[in-house]
């Protein structure tokens, strides 16, 4: 691994933490306030690619486990791993890997609609796929009940998937060398 990879992985782990430190945005019409944290997950995958994005998330998780209060709402420490929302958190590296894997292929002919779709499948679908069964297990709910309880976060997550796609498009134009080194980026260079 090159120094640049090491620095970028650390940067996106820190970005995910910094986004979690932002105060939650209360959204009119939606009861649940939106936190920006999963934006970091989607951006790490989209901008770093599968492997480095997943490593950034593992790094973030290690720091949460070590006790830094960097999960949204100032949570942190081992208690997170015993809490009912642990599944949503454990899914971060898988979500980043999936989004990165798709974006690696999408990057040369990047398209914001496809990027949004990838973010929805990886950043929402995969995260809920891990989160809802574990929420059900810990809270003693059935899958359907846990899914209904999680539905409140869906509108906010959809907004974030769109925002992440727009941000990825803008960073791709503004700093294309973020993907230098990944084969897809080289293939896409004119």
């Amino acid at each position: 691994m090159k120094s640049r990879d090491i620095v970028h992985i650390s940067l996106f782990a820190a970005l995910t933490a910094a986004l979690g430190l932002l105060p939650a945005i209360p959204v009119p019409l939606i009861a649940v306030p939106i936190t920006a944290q999963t934006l970091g997950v989607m951006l790490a995958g989209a901008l770093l690619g599968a492997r480095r994005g997943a490593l950034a998330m593992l790094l973030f998780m290690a720091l949460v486990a070590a006790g830094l209060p960097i999960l949204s709402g100032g949570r942190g420490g081992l208690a997170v791993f015993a809490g009912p929302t642990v599944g949503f958190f454990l899914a971060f590296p898988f979500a980043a890997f999936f989004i990165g894997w798709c974006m690696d292929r999408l990057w040369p002919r990047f398209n914001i609609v496809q990027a949004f779709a990838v973010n929805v499948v990886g950043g929402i679908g995969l995260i809920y796929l891990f989160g809802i069964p574990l929420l059900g297990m810990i809270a003693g709910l059935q899958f359907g009940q846990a899914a209904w309880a999680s539905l409140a976060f869906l509108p906010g997550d959809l907004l974030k998937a769109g925002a992440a796609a727009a941000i990825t498009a803008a960073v791709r134009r503004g700093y294309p060398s973020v993907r230098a080194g990944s084969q897809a980026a080289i293939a896409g260079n004119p």
Partner: protein
Amino acid sequence: MNPSQPGRRARAARALPVGHKLAALAIFCAGLAWMSAPAALAAMVLACLLLYGAAGVPARRLRRPLAGLAVMAAAILAFHFAAGSFALGLRSALVLAGGILAANLVTETTRVTDMMDTFERWLAPLSRLGLDPARISAMLAMTIRFIPFLSNELHTMQQARFARGARPHSVMLAVPLVISALRSGDELAAALDARGFGGAADHNLDKGALS
């Protein structure tokens, strides 16, 4: 006594090997999962609270986790009460309380640096798979340094937007934030390489930074 100085019991709890504390936590959580009688589970939760006292954790440090726990437990109990499965709800809430309190106790009695040292020691065998432990340590340290850096950058950009009369809170602020972070990161990577951190095989990485 200065409240910021840990007491004798707190120092003793911190001096326990991290591996032992984590193993005890794992056994405790396995016990919670295995038990089903609410009375036994309540006893486990109570024992956990007593351990906080034994470890010299000040009561004010418990306020936050307890408040969060109360909200979660109330939600679970209310839901199960409405669904007519109160016994299951009570058991879930007690297991949750025990697990969260025990895990939080380990975090409270362990310095972040000690915990990270333990992770690094456990990950050392991965060097055979090509994951250098020195690099893992470097990444952990860099991430901790980058968090306040990025928070400051974000704050500066919000101020700049505010000064221009634009809405200071916009999700698209992430664009200049990410680009500025990547730019500083590339400078840092070049500096690391100049000091020989990356090793001789990594000389082609500047291509990306300069293109």
